[in-house]
């Protein structure tokens, strides 16, 4: 039950029809109804109340671990800066935090190759940063500036950068799973060995699009890694009102794909599990479902008063299971880095954020008429400028 089995071939080898019941198109499998869920990197209680660290079972080199630390800090501090900007009313829309769950996005995205793709949820800023998007793009985008990657047309991480392997989501949850099947079908036709991660929430898994997309990916054996973020809430809705499974990983059975449960607040575990999944997927193993157990410490967005959260719950997670704390503790305890080294990294991150934020603030707002451009290729269809009434 630990390592995902190699699933058998996707298509029937023979279609023999004789006088025995021709149970065609059934792949031989070790035994029926077996679930293939690996819990190797699942959350564990800490031994004798010691504060949680991270898994020591890893192939990551020290420099890579510091890189991970940098991304964790970057994610958290970019978000904190966004909250500042929001309070200064410089952010035009809402701010969505990944506080307390940064390790999931960072660790998993870090396991991909540069040519691989991610499509994040709104709370996966970390994955976007790992894929090479700069903080300045994020700041400009949140502030609806002309220099932002969508030129002020869309919000937060709703943009993309094909060259960097980043495909931004739309608001409609679930829809990116089908879209990623297309990205991977294309890669297959183009003979590229691309792997993709699509993030989905405990809530988003209830959508029909999620089901259609993952089912299709499984049938086509596409190298799609779906990372299901069990962060306990979908807006205000607790997970037991989204699904009746205990572990989101159980849904892999519907698609006959292997699954992992990972401690989403252990950045190394997230890396390791995703690495294995990516290797498996790239070797034509097909789709994989990874469930990351984590916790959303902030409300759905900044305005949410979290009235629905049981007393003490957030505080418990903050105190005992913060992914940055855990990793920092791990790095120090395992003597991978000194406190000074980590502080240096943090200081560099802060400098970068200052610089990028200043850049973004210096951007003008877009020119109003820009609204009319780019619905279609404007060399074919003219821009949608405001009509002049009765001009003729």
């Amino acid at each position, binding site marked *: 039950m630990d390592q995902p089995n190699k699933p058998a071939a996707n298509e029937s080898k023979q279609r023999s029809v004789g006088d025995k019941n021709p149970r065609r198109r059934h792949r031989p499998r070790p035994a029926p109804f077996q679930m293939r869920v690996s819990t190797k990197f699942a959350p564990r209680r800490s031994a004798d109340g010691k504060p949680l660290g991270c898994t020591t079972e890893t192939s990551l080199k020290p420099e890579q671990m510091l890189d991970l630390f940098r991304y964790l800090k970057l994610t958290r501090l970019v978000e904190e800066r966004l909250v500042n900007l929001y309070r200064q009313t410089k952010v035009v829309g809402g701010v969505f935090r990944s506080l307390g769950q940064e390790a999931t996005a960072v660790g998993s995205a870090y396991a991909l190759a540069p040519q691989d793709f991610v499509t994040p949820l709104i709370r996966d800023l970390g994955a976007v940063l790992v894929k090479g998007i700069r903080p300045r793009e994020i700041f400009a985008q949140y502030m609806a500036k002309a220099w932002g990657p969508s030129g002020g047309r869309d919000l937060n991480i709703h943009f993309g950068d094909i060259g960097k392997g980043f495909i931004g989501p739309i608001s409609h949850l679930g829809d990116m799973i089908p879209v990623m099947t297309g990205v991977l079908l294309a890669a297959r036709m183009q003979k590229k060995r691309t792997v993709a991660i699509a993030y989905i929430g405990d809530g988003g898994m*209830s959508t029909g699009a999620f089901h259609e997309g993952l089912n299709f990916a499984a049938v086509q054996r596409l190298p799609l890694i779906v990372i299901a973020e069990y962060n306990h809430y979908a807006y205000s*809705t607790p997970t037991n009102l989204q699904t009746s499974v205990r572990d989101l990983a159980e849904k892999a059975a519907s698609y006959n794909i292997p699954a992992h449960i990972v401690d989403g607040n252990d950045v190394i575990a997230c890396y390791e599990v995703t690495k294995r999944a990516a290797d498996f997927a790239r070797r034509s193993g097909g789709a994989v479902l990874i469930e990351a157990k984590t916790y959303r410490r902030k409300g759905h967005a900044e305005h949410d008063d979290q009235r629905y959260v049981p007393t003490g719950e957030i505080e418990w997670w903050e105190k005992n299971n913060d992914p940055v704390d855990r990793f920092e503790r791990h790095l120090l305890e395992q003597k991978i880095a000194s406190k000074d080294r980590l502080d240096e990294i943090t200081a560099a991150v802060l400098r970068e954020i200052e610089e990028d934020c200043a850049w973004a603030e210096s951007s003008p707002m877009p020119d109003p008429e820009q609204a009319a451009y780019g619905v279609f290729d404007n060399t074919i269809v003219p821009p949608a400028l405001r009509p002049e009434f009765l001009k003729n």
Partner: protein
Amino acid sequence: MATATKKEHKSARPERGGQATLVEAIRQGIWEEMERDPTVFVIGEDVGLYGGAFKVTDGLIDQFGKERVIDTPISEAAIVGAACGAGLMGMRAVAEFQFIDFISAGFDLLTNYAAKCRYRWGANIPAVFRGPCGSGVRSGPFHSLNAESFFLNTAGLKIVEPATAYDAKGLIKAAIRDPDPVLYFEHKKLYRLPRLREELPADDYIVEIGKARIAREGRDLSIITFGAMVLTALDAAEELEKEGLDVEVIDLRTLAPLDKASILASVKKTNRAIVLHEASRTGGIGGEIAATIAEEAFEWLDAPVLRVASIDTPVPYSPPLEDYYLPQTKDVLEAARKLAAY
């Protein structure tokens, strides 16, 4: 619900009538209908303990329990389907889309199941599908939709959109009591707009579906509009009055079936018409209205029927872009002046 939560919170039963904003008016309406009729229930995402993303259903779960105030998974098709199935059994769902943009995920069941059951086999579906619509609040391409045009060509769905607190309450009650499916769109910019705060009667009342309202009487020009654009039209009318132009503003309230009689009566009086709406111009409801006028009041027209609407793009996020996108008072003024001078 029995556990201590972060903020102990119990929302009070709303007043019956009294001073109310638009959001409060809708909440009153649903609350009163649930008290009046045990077949009425609420279903949607985060409508229970949280009271809905815009708090329209705030407090209902405390009063009516989770069997009648149902928090669903993120499953718009399931929400629409459940409302339909319950409707077949004589229950009356008030189903919420967290934002009307997500109605696209329920589009299939709305247009194929809800709209067609009565026609196909006589089984009517009394259900209300409601949610916040509209742009102008810097919410970008996916939280700013005006969805009416998706449904205008599907026979079997009624559509309403209030522009006042009074109408909001009267229409939600009428929608809940209606024997057929009703889409009820709520412009999110109006929810808490102080300008719309008004005194509501303490008595039970409804606003009949299918009847437009004259928001302002006038002789020279008709502006036919609805929702948040009623305010734009009224602002323009005030401005134009100074220029000696007496503008009539028709607030449609019901978008399907259209109150053609009121539209035509107004145009036959004023002989000039502007159709104003917030959705993009092409393929918007303005086409239907202008075509109706061109068809049935042709002889009364002294000038072309002008449509003032958003440009044909998604709704952009950045304020200068969204302002360019949206029809502004000045666009209405320009169109009105052109028509007056025609």
